[in-house]
C-alpha cells in the first residue's frame, strides 16, 4: 500500500503542510502527510479569528481540511512521527511510527456516546489546559479526520483495571484496544518540512503562579466560541469579565535567548485587543510594546485603525514586573516610559504575547538528518532559494523556516510544493471532476514582468515542461533588483540576477519578449488568448496560454523631501548601494552618514510600511561601518522593523556603535544645507528631549515603495486593486497569490512591498498554483453554472455589471453571454435579472420553489 516511489513526504499537518500537500496533489503528485496530533490543522485550528480581516476564516480553513482528507492523492497519517530518513534526493526511505488511535476512523460515527460514558477527565490541551476533556475525545467538533481518539497515557483500560466502558458503549464497535504501534516505511522522491513552531513555555512574570496572567494562545481559546468558556471573554481566576487588559509584547522574542523577532505578535495582539473591545465596549485595552512591527499588507492600516478608532492604548515600554494585588485577583504592572518616568497601573488580566520557537521535535529530526540550522534552530535557507534546505530534495516551509504568519506560511508552502515537485518523479492520475469540457489546457504560461519574481516563476514553469512567454516592458530583464547589492543576510544579489537572467535567456522553453506590453486579453483558466504589442513598432503578437502570472513589480517614491534632488549628497537607498560597490574612496573620506527611514511610508497619504527599508538601511550601514570603522552612522527611524531573523542585524548594528534615534511623524528630522552645500540634520532625541544636530557627509533616504501603474493592469485583466494601489488577492490569509478569477496569479511587489526572499517564494507559489491548472488533462468547469435564456433577455446588462467572477461578456449582438469556465455559480445574477432570464444549474428557481413547497 505504501510503495509509491517518487511521491512527496510532507512532515507536519498544520496550515503550511496542508497547503503544500494540496498543491502537490492537485498537480498530480502523491503525498504522504505526517501529523503528530490526532487531527490536521495545527496551531491555526486553535485560533479564533485572524488578522487583518478579523474574520474567522473557518469556512476556508475547514474547506482545505476536508479537501485534504478526501483527496485521492493524499494519504494522511495522524498520530505519526518520522523516526528516520535515509537516502538522497529522488529516492528517500522514510521510517514512520504511527501510534494507535484505538478508534477505527472508518467505523466511528462521532456520536459521542463513548465520551459521555468515559469516567476519566483530564486537562484539555487543545484549550491550553483551561478546560477539561474525557480520555476518549474529539479535539474540537470539526476536527479532521472526524473521529474520536483515546489518550493512552490516561486511559483506565491501560492504567488500571482494564476499563471497557467506552468499548461497551460504542454501538459501531469502533473501539479497538488491541491496535498496536506501526512502523511504516515510505519511499519518496522529496520531503517538505512543514513542522511549524512550538510556543515558548513562559518562565516569565509568574505565569505559573498568577492565574490571570495568560498566554496569547490561552486568550485565543478563551475568546473562541468553541473554547472552554463558550466565547465569553472572562478571566480564569473568577470567570468575571475583565474591564482592563494589558498585552505585553516580545515575550520570548528579542531577548538574550531568542535573538529574533517572532513577526506575528504585534499583529495578533492588536487583533486580540480589537476583539476584546468588540465583546466589551467599555473595556480598556493597553498594549505594551518596544517597536510596533506591522509590516505586512494592510497591517499598518490595521494598527492605525486600532489606535485611532478602536481606542486601543499603545505604550512604548518593556514591562519588567507583574505583581499580584493582594486581596484581589488583579495585577499590578510597573513600567517606565521613554523618559524614564515610572508608572504603576492595575489590570484585571495580563496577556503575554508569546513568541515562536521552531518545533522542538523537528529540530531534533533535522539535526539527526544533518540539515543545517541557524543559531536559533530555524532551518538555514538562502534568500534566493527560500524553501531549500542544505540537503537537496528536502524543503522547508512555514514557521520552521523563520517566524511567519499564516499567509506567508501558505505562500511558502506553495513555493515548497513547486520546488519539491521537480524531485518527485512519479505522477499519479488526477481525479477529474464530474463535468469537464472536451478541451485540454494550453500548456503555456504568460508571465508579465521580467523582474526577479517573473523570472523565477518562469523558470519554475519551464522546468516542469511548460512553454513560458515572459513579457517585459523595458529593454532588459532584472527589474529594480538590478539596483540592489546585497540581501539582509549578506548574499550577493548582482551575481544571482546575472545567473538568473542567463538561465532564463537560455532556456529552450522560455520566450522572452522585451519592450513589450499586453494590449488585450481574453479567455479563461486553461485557455487564454493575449495580444502583445512591441513598443516602437506596430507589430503585435497573439499568444495562447493556459495561465497568467502577473509580476509587474512596483516603483520607488521620487521624493522631494529632505532636499532630495537639490543637494547631491542627499541620496536614495540604491545610490548608497552604488557607492558601496563603486566608490570606496568616497566612503573612506566620509566621517558621518545619516539614514532617514520611513521617507514617504507610513504617512497619511501612504499608510503602509514598505517593509524593506529598515533592513536595507541596516545592511548598508553595516557595510559602511566595515569599510570605514571610524565613520559615525546615525539611523533615524520611527519603529525599527527588523522582523523575524533580521533582528540579528539590528543587534549587530547596535553592537558596532551605529546610533539609532527615534523620531515621530509630527517631529520629522530636518535637513538643511549651508552656502557651501554642507548638510545639517536636526532631529529631536526623544530620550533626551533635546534637539540633536548632526553634520553628515551624506544622507540616505529610505524612500517608500509605491505601486506601479496597476490601474491599467487591473482594467485589462479585470482584477481588483486595494486601497494602496497594489493588486488585491482573493483572500488575505488563505489565498495570497490568487485572484477570485481562476487561472490568473500574481507575485512579488505588485502584491505589496517585500524583500527579495519573500518575492521569490511568492513567485514559486504562483507557479505552483499555475501548475494545478496546467497539469489537468481537461479544463474543468464548475457544476453550478448560470446560463441566460436569450429569448427572455432584454440586454439591460445588469448581470454583466454585478458578476463577481467577470464571467459575463457581451457578445457581438449586444447581448450577454456567461462563460461557464469563469462562472462561480453564486447565482447573484439570477436575482438581479429583471426578467428572470438567468437560471443557475442545480439551483434554478423552479427547483428552489418546489423545495419550498415540499418542505412546508
Amino acid at each position, binding site marked *: 500500500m505504501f510503495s509509491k516511489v517518487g511521491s512527496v513526504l510532507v512532515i507536519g499537518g498544520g496550515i503550511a503542510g496542508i497547503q503544500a500537500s494540496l498543491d502537490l496533489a492537485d498537480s498530480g503528485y502523491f503525498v504522504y502527510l505526517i501529523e503528530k496530533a490526532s487531527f490536521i490543522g495545527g496551531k491555526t485550528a486553535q485560533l479564533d479569528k485572524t488578522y487583518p*480581516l478579523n*474574520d*474567522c*476564516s*473557518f*469556512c476556508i480553513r*475547514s*474547506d482545505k481540511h476536508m479537501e485534504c482528507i478526501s483527496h485521492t492523492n493524499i494519504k494522511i497519517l495522524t498520530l505519526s512521527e518520522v523516526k528516520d530518513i535515509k537516502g538522497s534526493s529522488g529516492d528517500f526511505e522514510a521510517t514512520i511510527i504511527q501510534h494507535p488511535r484505538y478508534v477505527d476512523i472508518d467505523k466511528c460515527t*462521532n456520536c*459521542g456516546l463513548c465520551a459521555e460514558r468515559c469516567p476519566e477527565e483530564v486537562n484539555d490541551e487543545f484549550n491550553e489546559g483551561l478546560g477539561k476533556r474525557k480520555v476518549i475525545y474529539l479535539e474540537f*467538533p*470539526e476536527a479532521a479526520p*472526524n473521529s474520536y481518539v483515546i489518550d493512552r497515557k490516561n486511559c483506565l483500560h491501560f492504567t488500571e483495571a482494564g476499563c471497557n466502558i467506552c468499548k461497551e458503549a460504542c454501538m459501531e464497535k469502533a473501539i479497538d484496544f488491541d491496535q498496536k504501534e506501526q512502523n511504516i516505511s515510505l519511499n519518496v522522491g522529496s520531503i517538505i518540512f512543514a513542522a511549524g513552531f512550538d510556543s515558548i513555555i513562559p518562565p516569565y512574570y509568574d505565569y505559573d503562579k498568577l492565574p490571570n496572567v495568560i498566554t496569547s494562545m490561552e486568550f485565543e481559546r478563551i475568546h473562541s*466560541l*468553541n473554547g472552554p468558556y*463558550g*466565547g465569553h471573554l472572562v478571566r480564569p481566576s473568577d470567570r468575571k469579565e475583565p474591564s482592563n487588559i494589558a498585552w505585553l509584547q516580545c515575550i520570548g522574542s528579542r531577548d538574550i535567548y531568542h535573538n529574533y523577532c517572532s513577526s506575528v505578535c504585534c499583529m495578533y495582539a492588536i487583533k486580540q485587543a480589537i476583539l476584546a473591545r468588540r465583546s466589551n465596549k467599555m473595556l480598556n485595552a493597553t498594549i505594551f510594546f518596544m517597536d510596533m512591527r506591522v509590516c505586512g499588507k494592510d497591517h499598518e492600516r490595521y494598527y492605525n485603525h486600532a489606535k485611532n478608532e478602536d481606542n486601543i492604548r499603545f505604550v512604548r515600554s518593556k514591562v519588567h514586573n507583574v505583581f499580584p494585588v493582594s486581596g484581589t485577583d488583579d495585577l499590578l504592572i510597573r513600567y517606565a516610559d521613554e523618559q524614564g518616568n515610572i508608572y504603576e497601573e492595575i489590570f484585571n488580566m495580563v496577556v503575554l504575547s508569546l513568541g515562536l520557537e521552531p518545533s522542538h521535535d523537528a529540530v531534533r529530526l533535522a539535526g539527526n538528518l544533518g540539515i543545517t540550522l541557524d543559531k536559533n534552530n530555524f532551518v538555514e535557507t538562502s534568500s534566493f532559494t527560500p524553501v531549500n534546505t542544505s540537503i537537496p530534495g528536502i524543503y522547508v516551509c512555514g514557521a520552521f523556516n523563520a517566524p511567519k504568519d499564516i499567509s506567508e506560511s501558505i505562500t511558502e508552502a506553495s513555493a515548497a510544493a513547486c520546488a519539491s515537485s521537480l524531485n518527485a518523479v512519479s505522477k499519479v492520475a488526477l481525479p477529474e471532476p464530474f463535468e469537464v469540457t472536451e478541451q485540454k489546457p494550453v500548456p503555456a504560461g504568460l508571465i508579465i514582468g521580467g523582474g526577479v519574481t517573473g523570472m523565477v516563476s518562469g523558470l519554475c514553469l519551464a522546468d516542469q515542461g511548460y512553454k513560458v512567454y515572459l513579457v517585459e516592458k523595458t529593454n532588459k530583464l532584472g527589474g529594480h533588483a538590478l539596483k540592489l547589492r546585497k540581501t539582509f543576510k549578506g548574499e550577493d544579489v548582482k551575481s544571482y540576477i546575472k545567473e538568473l537572467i542567463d538561465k532564463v535567456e537560455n532556456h529552450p522553453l522560455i520566450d522572452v519578449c522585451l519592450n513589450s506590453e499586453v494590449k488585450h486579453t481574453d479567455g479563461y483558466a486553461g485557455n487564454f488568448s493575449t495580444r502583445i504589442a512591441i513598443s516602437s513598432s506596430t507589430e503585435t503578437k497573439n499568444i495562447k496560454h493556459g495561465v497568467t502570472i502577473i509580476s509587474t513589480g512596483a516603483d520607488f517614491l521620487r521624493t522631494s523631501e529632505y532636499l532630495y534632488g537639490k543637494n547631491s549628497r542627499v541620496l536614495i537607498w540604491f545610490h548608497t548601494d552604488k557607492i558601496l560597490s563603486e566608490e570606496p574612496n568616497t566612503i573612506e573620506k566620509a566621517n558621518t552618514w545619516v539614514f532617514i527611514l520611513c521617507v514617504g511610508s507610513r504617512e497619511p497619504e501612504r499608510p503602509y510600511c514598505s517593509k524593506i527599508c529598515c533592513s536595507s538601511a541596516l545592511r548598508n550601514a553595516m557595510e559602511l561601518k566595515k569599510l570605514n570603522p571610524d565613520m559615525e552612522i546615525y539611523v533615524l527611524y520611527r519603529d525599527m522593523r527588523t522582523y523575524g531573523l533580521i533582528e540579528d542585524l539590528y543587534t549587530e548594528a547596535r553592537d558596532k556603535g551605529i546610533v539609532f534615534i527615534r523620531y515621530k511623524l509630527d517631529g520629522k528630522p530636518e535637513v538643511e544645507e549651508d552656502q557651501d552645500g554642507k548638510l545639517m540634520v536636526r532631529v529631536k532625541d526623544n530620550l533626551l528631549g533635546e534637539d540633536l544636530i548632526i553634520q553628515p557627509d551624506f544622507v540616505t533616504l529610505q524612500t517608500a515603495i509605491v505601486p506601479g501603474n496597476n490601474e491599467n493592469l487591473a482594467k485589462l485583466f479585470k482584477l481588483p486593486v486595494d486601497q494602496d494601489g497594489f493588486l488585491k488577492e482573493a483572500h488575505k490569509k488563505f489565498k495570497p497569490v490568487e485572484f*477570485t478569477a481562476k487561472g490568473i496569479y500574481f507575485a512579488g511587489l505588485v502584491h505589496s512591498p517585500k524583500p527579495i526572499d519573500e518575492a521569490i517564494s511568492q513567485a514559486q507559489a504562483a507557479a505552483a498554483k499555475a501548475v494545478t491548472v496546467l497539469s489537468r488533462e481537461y479544463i474543468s468547469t464548475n457544476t*453550478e453554472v448560470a446560463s441566460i435564456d436569450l429569448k427572455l433577455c*432584454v440586454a*439591460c446588462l*445588469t448581470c454583466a*455589471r*454585478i458578476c*463577481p*467572477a467577470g464571467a459575463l461578456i457581451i457578445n457581438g449582438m449586444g447581448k450577454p453571454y456567461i462563460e461557464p469556465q469563469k462562472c*462561480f*455559480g*453564486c*447565482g*447573484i445574477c*439570477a*436575482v*438581479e*435579472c*429583471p*426578467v*428572470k432570464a438567468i437560471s*443557475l444549474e442545480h*439551483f434554478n*428557481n423552479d427547483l*428552489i*420553489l418546489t*423545495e*419550498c*413547497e415540499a*418542505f*412546508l
Partner: protein
Amino acid sequence: MTSDKFEPRIMGFLCNWCCYTAADSAGVARYQYPPNIRVIRVMCSGRVDPVFIFEAFSCGADGVFVGGCHLGECHYQLGNYDVMLATALTKKIMTKIGISPERLLLEWASAAEGSRYVQMITEFTNNLKSLGPLGTTDKVDMDVLKVKLSAARHSVEDMKLRTGLGNLTKGFRKEGDYSAQTIEDKIDQKIAKSIDSAIGKQETLLWIQQEGPISLDVLTKKVGQPTADVEKYVSAFSKKGLVTETNGKLSATSNE
C-alpha cells in the same frame, strides 16, 4: 394557551459556505435547538430572490430565515451585501401587505459559529412563537392575506421593480455605504413607487379575478391604494383585454 403549542414553520435559505456549514457544525457539535427550521441550501445568500421568500410565505411558512457569511467574508465578494438590499425590499413589501417584517430574518454566521447559528434560530423561533401563526397577529384576514401574498409574490417578478433592484445594487456597490438608514432611504427614494404600482397592479387583477364582478369602490378599498391609481391599473388591464366592465362592475376575462 394555544400559542404555547404553536410551532412556527421556518423556511431557511442558507449559503453553502458559511451559514450552511454553521448549521452543519451545530449538528456535529450536537447542540440542541428547535426543530422548526427547514433548510434550503443556496450557493450564496445573494442567490436568495425575493420571489423565494414570498413563495415560502405563500406555502405557509411563519417565518423566513436567510443566512449568509459575515460581511466581508462572502465567497463571491459582495453577495451578502446584495441580499441586504433584496431583504430590505422584501420587508418593505411585507409591511405594505400587512405582514410583520420581523418574520423575515437576515443574519450571518461563519462556519465555526455553530453555537451562534443555534442561538439565532432559537431566538427567531421564540420570536415567531410570540408573533403567532402567519396572519393571526398581523391582524390580516387569512383570505385577504392569501391574495396579498400572491400579489406580492408576483410583484417581485415585475420587471420594473426588478430593474429598480438591479440598479439599486449597482448604485450601492459603487457607493459602498450599506448602513440600514441609507438602504431605507434609497429604497424609499428610488423604488418605493415601483413597489406600490407593482403590488397595486397585481392586487387589482387578483381581486377582480377572485371577487368579480366588483365595483371600483369596493376594489379600491380592497387594494388600499388611491382611486386614481387603481383606475390606472384597471384601464391598463382593460387595454390588454384582461378585465371587462359591465354595469359599472369589473370582472376578469374568463379565458385568461
